[in-house]
């Protein structure tokens, strides 16, 4: 017997490769989106800092904008630098 597969339609779910489940700022899941967004994924990406913490991009930007003096990671208080 020979089986010839014409088409295999699979189902998969995507997830961020992150070391945590939830965003430390908004407490929403990374795989969801920040409170201001409606659509996850491309429209509400994650960003990583050099301290290896990651957040929803919108969340960390909001945080950084609200910091007057020094821009720190809200988790470890190190200076925030985007990871390249």
């Amino acid at each position, binding site marked *: *017997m*020979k089986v010839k*597969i014409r088409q*295999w339609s*699979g*189902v998969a779910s*995507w*997830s961020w*490769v992150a070391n945590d489940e939830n965003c430390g700022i908004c407490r929403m899941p990374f795989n969801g989106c920040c409170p201001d967004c*409606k659509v996850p994924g491309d429209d509400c990406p994650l960003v990583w800092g050099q301290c290896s913490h990651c957040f929803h991009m919108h969340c960390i930007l909001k945080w950084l904008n609200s910091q007057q003096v020094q821009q720190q990671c809200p988790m470890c208080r190190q200076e925030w630098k985007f990871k390249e």
Partner: protein
Amino acid sequence: MEEMVVELNSGEPSAPGSDQGVAKAWESVTAALVSPGSSLSEQDRLNLALLCSHGLGRLLGVWLLESLQVRLSSSVVPEFWSGLEQPQDQLEERDRAGVLLSAFQTLLDRLDPFLSGLEQLGAWQAEGRCGLSGPGPGALQDRAFTTIRALLLFSPPTVLQQRVLEFYSRTFSVYMSREGGEDGPEVLEGPDGGACPGCRAPALHCWCPEALQRLQQLSLALSRLQLLEWVSAEAVTAILHRLIEQRMEQHCRGEYERSFLLDFQEWLELVLGWLGKVFATEGGGAAPVPMDPSVPSTPSACGSPVLKQWRCHMHQFFCRIYVNMRIEELFSIIRDFPESKPAIEDLKFCLERTNQRQQLLTSLKSAFESRLLHPGVHTSDILTVYISAIKALRELDPSMVILQVACQPIRKYLRTREDTVRQIVAGLTGDAEACSDLASELSRGDPVTLEMQDSDDEGNDPEDWAPDPTDAVPDKLGSKRRSSDIISLLVSIYGSKEIFIDEYRTVLADRLLHQLNYNTAREIRNVELLKLRFGESHMHYCEVMLKDMADSRRINSHIREEESKLSEEEQPPLALSAIVLSSEFWPTLKEEKLELPAAVCHAMEAYTRRYEKLKAMRTLSWKPHLGSVTLDLELEDRTLTNLTVSPFHAAIILHFQEKSSWTLEELSVKLGAPKELLHRKLALWQQQGVLREEAAGRYVVMETGATRDRLDRGVMLIDSDEERDSNTTTQSEQREEKLQLFWAYIQAMLTNLDSMTLERIHTMLRMFVATGPVVTEMDVNELEAFLQRKVREHQLIVSTGIYRLPKTS
């Protein structure tokens, strides 16, 4: 001059002769009174004056009534009854009618002297002649008639009623056939053929005119005796009742698509003509209605108060009978609704005139319960009837109270059915044929948003406000909130739209996952329509799901493109496409363990790598059991092409490619799936004649010998068991999960607060668990049931309504 005479008379018969003179005078006066037609002679006048002077004037009236009474009870009444009963049954109907008439006429003849005597005496009294005083003719006669009625009809034998009924029925049918309005079954025989349509006698012996003649005479006699109302009313009422009922049975029963109000209005006018004859002489005074039956007598007769009263009665009868019949049939009317609208409108008209709402409610409720709400009826059928009921009853009662009250059992029952929400959603999305109304209802022009109905808007014009009917259920919701919108009513069966939207999400997920192409046009339309009703925010998850589909298509074509750039040998062995989900936004998908064959796994890994390259920092986790596979099977003597199966089935058959014989155990290990499940899945291939089960759980490929010619047919192979909608967990499973989530909260609360009442727990839960897609409104009852279960499982202790955790040992 009068007084002179009186004085003279009083003076003349002095002491010894005076008694005798008075006696004489009494006799002569009374004789004159009861002798019909004689006017008072001069002598009588003197006698009368004499009597009056002796103060006997008052006694005249009493005597007259007394002798009337004696006469009545001694001879007249027995004569009347024997005259009526004497011939018994031997007689023809026609003769019986004659007997009836003559009995009354004899009665009239016998009593006439007294009546005229009374009239005369009354006239004297009224004139105050000879110092005579008394209540006047009216009162005297009233008393006389009361006496007659009392003696005659104190305990009338049934024969009178029978005769009267018979006679009136006959004259009625004669009249109706004369007036030409009646097209009952009588006409079928034809006027020439044999029986006259009116009197049912052979045409030669038709006595229709005679019957009408007699009717008039009888009416005259009765009204002269002031017995008309007493003798006829009952019979007439009975006849009218029977006839309206009959006519309604013949014309209206089971016939809902035509309005009968006007028909009956006309017919009732005709009947009124007959009533005009029955009560002709009473209302119309002395002038009898012209007897020529061809001249419609209605206009002249209608005016009298008696007829007006009867007209009212008749309308009342009609409405009542009609309502009774329709109430009985209401279930069927509702079932046929859009076609049965005329019946509903008629019923509405009549119901406003009778006080039968309560009866309607009770009967409709029990009809629902006995005919609809039992396990043998499919949920979609119940929904269909419910939808019809909504449509029909909102016509019937714009205040929606009937709808609300009568359909309460349906709603309650639907709540107990597992698949209600699924059916409603299927109806909304146009999947179910049965509830196709829902889809059109959804796409209707002016959707009433659920938000809007929640607002406290009390309507536009305060002048239009009407109080609720008395049978309204007193609840927090005012009449304004009593919605008539079908979708909102259905959605509110469960009390909250969240459950409903959750279910919709599940259905949508199923539909999307079963799609092989990424065509979502219809789903997008549905979601847009639902958004109009439920508001943007509630449909947000569904929107993300649809967007996932679109994104998946883009990703797929991108990856395809990448692959096509590769050289020949690097081409992937398997054409894999994927639907990539945003797991947070999709309903919980059923987990099933399945190890796919290596080739497929490789393909998936390759796909994942390309995805990771496309979307930085993101990866895929595959749901091996979801999706679908299209494959061809080449066996030695036949080829099965274009089979579409689930990945599970595909994995099974792929293994048989390597080795043509497997035991259940081996396969189970290989696929990482439990044996029971595997066994079920294998059945499909057995059905297709591809595999054969040998002894000891061993399956082999049937390379040859299968007789079935399933060649070249693209078939969608679906398991016989629940495969179709098994991708998502069922409603009750999800609910159970949610309750478990609540249990954690409850335990925490009870640990901190020691003991709590049911209400307290409920409010606390509502406060804590307030957001997210998984939260459903849980009502107190449900919570109580859940807590009771925990109590039974000894995880909770309850005493006097206070819950606490058991002391940890």
